[in-house]
């Protein structure tokens, strides 16, 4: 439905995106994850046809978007909820009506759709409120409602729950799920990995503007101490060494393919070594064996069948997991 091919984007001499190919299928939810500055918001603005990539093309419904008229037409089927959404001065209802009118829906039909969506999102009581008098969380809800009421073919959302509480977040993802079921293509950029892993079907992980492979396993919410560079993060009884400038609540991921499994500790540059016991072994028959290891918290590691045989591992075997501090991803 929406395809990006050879997207490269520069801000001055700085290259902020370099993506070979991305496909967003009709009726799917895709999460775009990555640290601040990884290119998530830029990618979403390009997918929303707000920015023209320096190189590359976008294909919407089989049509390559080339001209100004193409982009205007495309913007009328795609919408974006920005990370810090903007509400126009005026009432919430006026804000909701803006996009509908821009897309040619007026009169009682527009008002009906607005009332219906506000009800669905659970903010019907805000309909006549001045948009400038809303809290950050309310602004975010109205922005999402404003996007949903347009019934777009592609719904792009940049950190849509950053100011939402748990129940609002769940409600929002339910609504997004319902939109997906109606055939809407949803793309959500978020650093809340637990959330997007729960609600999304596919993932795009960005690092420095490029896509990198990432899996949803070994993802943890942690508190990162102040300072820069190498730090120690507590995860239950485990102490995990990470290298990041991020401070405060964050999500870390220990990619299963990057965890080294050994039968004893050894001298290496890896700052993280965790002792554990194998709980489960799964061979996918395609050259990948997944080990679930109790190391105080459950960790997943992937090795080859030959490594499994050579180390003579079985359920209950004690193992040591090693990973470099720099390989631990921080979101």
């Amino acid at each position: 439905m929406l395809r990006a091919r050879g997207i490269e984007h520069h801000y001055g001499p700085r290259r902020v995106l370099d993506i070979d190919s991305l496909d967003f299928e009709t009726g799917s939810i895709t999460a775009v994850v990555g640290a601040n500055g990884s290119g998530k918001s830029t990618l979403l603005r390009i997918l929303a046809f707000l920015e023209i990539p320096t190189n590359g093309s976008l294909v919407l419904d089989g049509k390559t978007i080339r001209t100004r008229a193409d982009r205007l037409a495309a913007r009328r089927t795609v919408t974006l909820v920005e990370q810090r959404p903007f509400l126009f001065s005026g009432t919430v209802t006026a804000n909701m009506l803006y996009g509908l009118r821009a897309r040619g829906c007026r009169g009682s039909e527009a008002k009906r759709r607005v009332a219906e969506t506000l009800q669905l999102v659970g903010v019907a009581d805000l309909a006549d409120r001045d948009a400038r008098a809303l809290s950050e969380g309310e602004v975010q809800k109205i922005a999402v409602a404003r996007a949903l009421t347009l019934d777009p073919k592609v719904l792009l959302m940049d950190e849509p729950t950053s100011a939402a509480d748990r129940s609002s977040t769940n409600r929002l993802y339910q609504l997004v799920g319902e939109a997906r079921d109606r055939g809407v293509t949803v793309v959500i950029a978020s650093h809340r990995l637990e959330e997007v892993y729960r609600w999304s079907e596919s993932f795009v992980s960005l690092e420095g503007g490029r896509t990198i492979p990432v899996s949803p396993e070994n993802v943890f919410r942690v508190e990162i101490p102040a300072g820069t560079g190498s730090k120690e993060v507590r995860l239950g009884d485990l102490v995990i060494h990470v290298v990041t400038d991020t401070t405060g609540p964050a999500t870390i991921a220990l990619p299963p393919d990057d965890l080294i499994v050994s039968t004893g500790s050894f001298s290496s540059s890896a700052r993280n070594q965790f002792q554990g016991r194998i709980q489960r072994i799964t061979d996918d028959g395609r050259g990948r064996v997944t080990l679930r290891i109790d190391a105080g918290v459950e960790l997943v590691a992937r090795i080859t069948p030959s490594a499994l045989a050579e180390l003579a591992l079985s359920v209950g075997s004690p193992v040591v997991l090693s990973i470099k501090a720099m390989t631990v991803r921080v979101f």
Partner: protein
Amino acid sequence: MDFLVEGFRRAVQLILSGDADVFGITALSIKIALSSTVLACLVGIPIGFVVGTTRFWGRRAALTVLNTMLAFPTVVVGVVIWGLLTRNGPFGGLGLLYTWWAIVAAEVVLAVPIAAALTAAAVQSIDPRVRRTALTLGAGPWRAQWAVAGEARFALLAAVVVAFGRVLAEVGAAMIVGGNIRNHTRTLTTAVALASSQGDFALAIALGLVLLGLALTVNVLLQLFQGRGHA
């Protein structure tokens, strides 16, 4: 000191008695100021919008030129317009010199940079998310610009008021191209200049009070409008 007090007393008398001269001059001044402001804003606001919201080669130079033109000496504008409208000038055939239209032409030249520069500043200060939000909701470029104008409406209105104030209070150009002809091109400012040079302080003060009253009225209206918008 007494002549000032006496001047004030007679000025109030002139205004309250509905003096035909005072009211005729005031009416002409308002007509010229309104016409000039409307024309200047019709030209200046779109220029300010383009300079303030679009990226093009020479934009910074355009902004510098606009800002420089804010300080254009009014007598220079008067002389240039006089040169254009005088019988031997390129537009001499129109017969506009020493008519109120000549004053309007000069005031428009003076007010366009004000409307343009203040509009550019107003729209530049608007959150860039306004335009992006409008576009992502499906607005075309014009509708998106209109959304920007809507968010900048108070600053744009202030630009209009400042332009109005400039043309209402201007004297040099009006004197040169209008000629200060009684009942034809005598405005509040040129009449004040004439009355004070003739020693008629009462009339000068009376007209000065009317000028101040007009400026005050326009600004109070602006404040009321802004207050209602922010309520």
